């Protein structure tokens, strides 16, 4: 595995940032997790399309919410490459910022609802409203992708 300093990393990552919407973070494995009592940071990823086709892209939802204040900021995007080989390249038109409007917790489940901050360029089948259901006990999350429910793997660390 090639190692480089952050400046070089950002220089390379910056090539992808041209097609990353403003405010949408680059996916960096291990960066996200649960922090503190009230703040949940997470990243959920799903490879696309499903088998038997090879995974070509990764659907990513990431960000953080405050469980007590029931607020937060999330982002979703589709990246080139399978989850285990994800690139920093985001497919143009797929990056969205999400303003969290409610957070409900029940046991190991967290239900987050929100709305897209930009509604002027929705893709066909894309709702301006957002929901993701996170289940820590299974390490899975469920969310919508252009009208289809997808199961996503939760990438978290305590």
């Amino acid at each position, binding site marked *: *595995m*090639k*190692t*480089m*300093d*952050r400046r070089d*990393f950002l220089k*390379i*990552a910056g*090539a*992808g940032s*041209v*097609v990353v919407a403003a405010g949408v973070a*680059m*996916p*960096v*494995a*291990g*960066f996200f997790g649960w922090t503190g009592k009230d703040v949940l940071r997470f990243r959920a990823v799903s490879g*696309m*399309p*499903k*088998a*038997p*086709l*090879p*995974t*070509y*892209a990764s*659907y990513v939802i990431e960000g953080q919410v405050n469980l007590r204040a029931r607020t937060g900021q999330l982002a979703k995007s*589709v990246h*080139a*490459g*399978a989850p*285990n*080989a*994800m*690139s*920093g*390249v985001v*497919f*143009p038109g*797929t990056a969205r910022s999400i303003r969290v409007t409610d957070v409900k917790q029940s046991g190991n489940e967290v239900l987050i609802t929100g709305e897209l901050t930009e509604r002027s360029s929705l*893709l*066909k*089948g894309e709702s301006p409203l957002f929901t993701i259901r996170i289940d820590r006990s299974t390490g899975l999350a469920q969310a919508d*992708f*252009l*009208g*289809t429910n997808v199961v996503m793997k939760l990438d978290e660390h305590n």
Partner: protein
Amino acid sequence: MADHLDVPGPIAITVDDDTANIGPPMGDPKTDITDVYAFLKPGDSSKSILILNVNPLAPALASSFDSAAIYQINVDTNGDAVADRSFRIRFSDLQDGEQKATVHLATGALAARLNDGGPAVIAGAPVSFGAAARVTTRGDYRFFAGIRSDPFFFDLLGFIDDFNFSHGDFFADKNVFAIVLEVPNSALGTTPHTTSLWGRTLLARNGTLVRDDRMARAAINTVFNHGQDKNVFNSIDPDKDLTATTTEGITFVQSFRNTLAALGGDTALATVLLPDVLNYDFSKPTSYAALNGRRLHDDVIDISLSLITGGGLTTDHVGPHTDYLSGFPYVGTPH
């Protein structure tokens, strides 16, 4: 995604405790092949147009050609999937916003080796970084290299949405870096019925040339090869396609059969799709549907969908772009 943004192998980068993969191929979109085309020159069937497109989403990810790379259009003349002729395109370093290209034509045993040898058929050709196409002509050869409208059309989001094709043409407003060659058919050999082509990029690594990306028919690596097998497939030449094995230890042929069976297609197609070359009989009209070359407007996705699903799916509901040019370099003005 004819081969857009598909890996030879994104580079895994570790920064402190963070890890990210920056790709595609070997981290450089400059050598990421998106499509390969070969068709008879409109109005003059004694010549052919060969196109090798790279750099998906240009210029967002990269804004020049790689001066350390060799871009190849390989030609097999006798049906053994080994290059007998090879057009090798190299670019100078980017200086003051300019790059110059040289095209060498290697023949015989030289063509199958990893090098940039052979006599030059085009030299000092300027790269086009703007809307105007700067075309270089030398004898029977014409050459263009530069940013152009991506001619590929496909509902990419429908593909990753499990074949729910309702999202429109993802590539309608995208650009690529195109390499376009007009060549006399005689440069492709004298046995058109056994002629085929493929694109290949080579990179200099530690003083040697290594295979980076390769492509012939549309979406073969993208649709049939999983994970690390994509890199394996890119690292071999077509003459090994029938015998090489995947990381699971089965042949690529068997792996293709498995995917075809799962999709409802005829498993016998595996040995039609492999070796992965673009058959090109320049004595006959070009038609991707007839497995003979590829024109810009050939709907390769509809043709492929129908084949690999046994007719279960026949279209992604998008069609050819309207910006193709009637004359050289044929690929449309960049967006």
